[in-house]
């Protein structure tokens, strides 16, 4: 009937199988099956066997990536790198009635080499286990429209929730705006035909769960359906966040910082976010945040343009961040900071993601017109998943 396939069948071998450590007779699942079922093929094939229960609806991938960082400021340059070695696990739990929970676990061993990391790293050459997104979402406790998530999750605020930038060079505003991108706690989440929501109560400590100084965070986002070309969302955040780095910046804006003790910052934010897909593969993203740190007003915003090739294997993005905070009037009003970035992500195959990004500080305004030299940072990242 047909003159011939667009892809000749003989040419199909040129597309290689994605390399996976779990597939094939030497794969980890086969070894696990053999060990659990004593090499009995009938038991392995039994859908109710232990190995089947573990293996069914399980995705598991080793994720290895390296990131180089080159920075320059005032004629001086520095370099460093970060190495990530992790395992990415997704498992759906089902019974005869259907799915009842999904587990996501992303423990990543992260090693800094002459790079300043988030506050939970002890120094610029430290290593830590970073849990990224590690939680279980129970989907059948309260009916179709409400789920309960327990564990380490993205704080439900702003564009980070629908976009999710964990492990990528591209970042949304949550880290800079909230001081915490993922946190330990519980959320109620769900979706209706036209909107979705997630509300959380969490530890306020970020990657590490600890019980000093009683930090906490309450957050939530309600957004329109992600499958439309226009997506809008509103968010709120209230809490006391363990973030010594941010606190140091806050103290710098006080004439007398002796009253601020401890390592938590009293923070409140209200946010509005927007994503618009043009008919061509171009997308615009924006996020606007208002709030306060202790009693000082804050306004932060993000604007991003994305351009894709039709298959989405190549993406260019350009982002602008405007961060501002009101200082004591005696110190000169508002501090503001603008940076711009240009980045690219390319997936040459199913296993690889290559990324690069350049961030340039464009403008700073400091209290009393203090002079700060503008700097730039160049990142490259190679990611291999198998």
């Amino acid at each position, binding site marked *: 009937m047909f003159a011939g*396939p667009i892809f000749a*069948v003989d040419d199909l071998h040129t597309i290689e199988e994605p390399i996976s450590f779990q597939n094939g007779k030497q794969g980890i699942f086969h070894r696990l099956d053999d060990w659990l079922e004593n090499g009995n093929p009938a038991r392995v094939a039994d859908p109710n066997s232990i190995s089947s229960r573990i293996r069914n609806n399980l995705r598991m991938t080793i994720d290895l990536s390296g990131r180089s960082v080159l920075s320059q400021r005032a004629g001086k340059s520095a370099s460093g790198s970060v190495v990530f070695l992790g395992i990415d696990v997704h498992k759906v739990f089902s019974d005869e009635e259907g799915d009842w929970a999904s587990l*996501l676990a992303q423990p990543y061993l992260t090693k800094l080499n002459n790079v300043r990391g988030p506050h939970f790293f002890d120094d610029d050459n430290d290593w830590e286990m970073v849990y990224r997104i590690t939680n279980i979402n129970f989907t059948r406790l309260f009916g179709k429209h409400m789920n309960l998530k327990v564990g380490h999750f993205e704080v439900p605020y702003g564009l980070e929730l629908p976009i999710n930038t964990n492990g990528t060079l591209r970042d949304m505003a949550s880290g800079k705006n909230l001081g915490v991108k993922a946190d330990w706690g519980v959320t109620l989440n769900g979706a209706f035909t036209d909107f979705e929501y997630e509300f959380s109560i969490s530890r306020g400590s970020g990657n590490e769960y600890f019980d000093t100084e009683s930090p906490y965070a309450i957050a939530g986002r309600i957004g329109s359906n992600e*499958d439309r070309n226009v997506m809008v969302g509103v968010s709120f955040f209230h809490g006391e966040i363990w973030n010594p780095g941010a606190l140091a910046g806050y103290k710098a804006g006080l004439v007398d910082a002796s009253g601020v003790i401890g390592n938590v910052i009293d923070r409140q934010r209200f946010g509005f976010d927007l994503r618009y897909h043009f008919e061509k593969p171009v997308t615009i993203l924006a996020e606007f945040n208002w709030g306060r740190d202790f009693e000082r007003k804050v306004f932060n915003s993000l604007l991003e343009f994305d351009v894709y090739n039709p298959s989405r294997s190549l993406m260019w993005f350009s982002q602008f961040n405007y961060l501002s905070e009101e200082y004591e009037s005696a110190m000169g009003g508002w501090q503001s900071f603008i940076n711009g970035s240009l980045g690219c992500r390319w997936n040459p195959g199913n296993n690889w993601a290559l990324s690069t990004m350049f961030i340039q500080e464009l403008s700073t305004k400091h209290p009393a017109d203090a002079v700060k030299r503008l700097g730039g940072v160049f990142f490259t990242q190679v990611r291999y998943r198998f």
Partner: protein
Amino acid sequence: MACGQAYCVLRDPVQQIAQLYPSSTFKSLVGVVNSEARKKVGKRLPYTLHFNELGQHTLYTINKNGKRIGYVHVRPEITKWGVMEVTWSLDLNLRVKDFLFQRCRNRRRNVLEAEDFKNQIVDKSFDELLAMLATDGHSLKEGALKLQDADKEFTAAVIRCALKTIAVSQIVWGDEINKHSKFPVGQKIKRIHDIYTSSLYEVLKKRHLEDNKDIERSTVRLYQVAEKVNQGEFIVDTVWRGIKPSTDILWKISSGRIIKIESSIGWPNPEVDAAFQELLGKSLKDLGTCKTTVELSALEVLLICRESL
């Protein structure tokens, strides 16, 4: 999803499933779409999967009252408007029941989401959809669908996506699908359209069935088993409204007799189940003096088959 993305970006199409199948539950079946599956798709279609489509994917089985009623699968298609993702609803025999766009930049998506278009592809099988494509496998065959010229390229992408979805579902989850197939596995089934012709209405009138409301006539689907035309083997899919809640009933007719009756979503009660099972083996002759609503429905189904011979 492709291997290159972390699993935290995985999203079940919960909203779409709720729209496509209200008051039902779903169960995930994760399967591996590998290069072997890609080769098989290439043999069944004049195009095949993009390498980004390889990896672990989910077929959602849809259940209602403990019975499987269909499938949902999300599949991408590369278009000049970027990657389009379509959430496909398929029946137990992998015929298109409905679809929703999960990602689609094309501003004319509303045209394809409208009933006018959907009615043209609903209930279509793999072969029927394949017949809509031109020999290049990329564009639509002239006159295959009633569309404006502006929508033809976009529509061809949707049809290609539907074909890939059916092919991948059958290749990757075939064992599971065949277990629950309404129709005999491996047999060619031909759908017969225009069931309620004027001559059938005449026959129904003679039997005082013209006002029979127990069978929802707009939903009746008639299929002929192609290899058993001589035996007059038919499968009739009906929604039966004789008692609430209504139920979906599949009738198998051979040589003018009822040989199998099944409810795909469960019987309203055991008495109804028993009443229908009483009909097994009966022909038009046996139902000459029928009185119950169940018997009247059986009579209508047998008349549909007789008039289609």
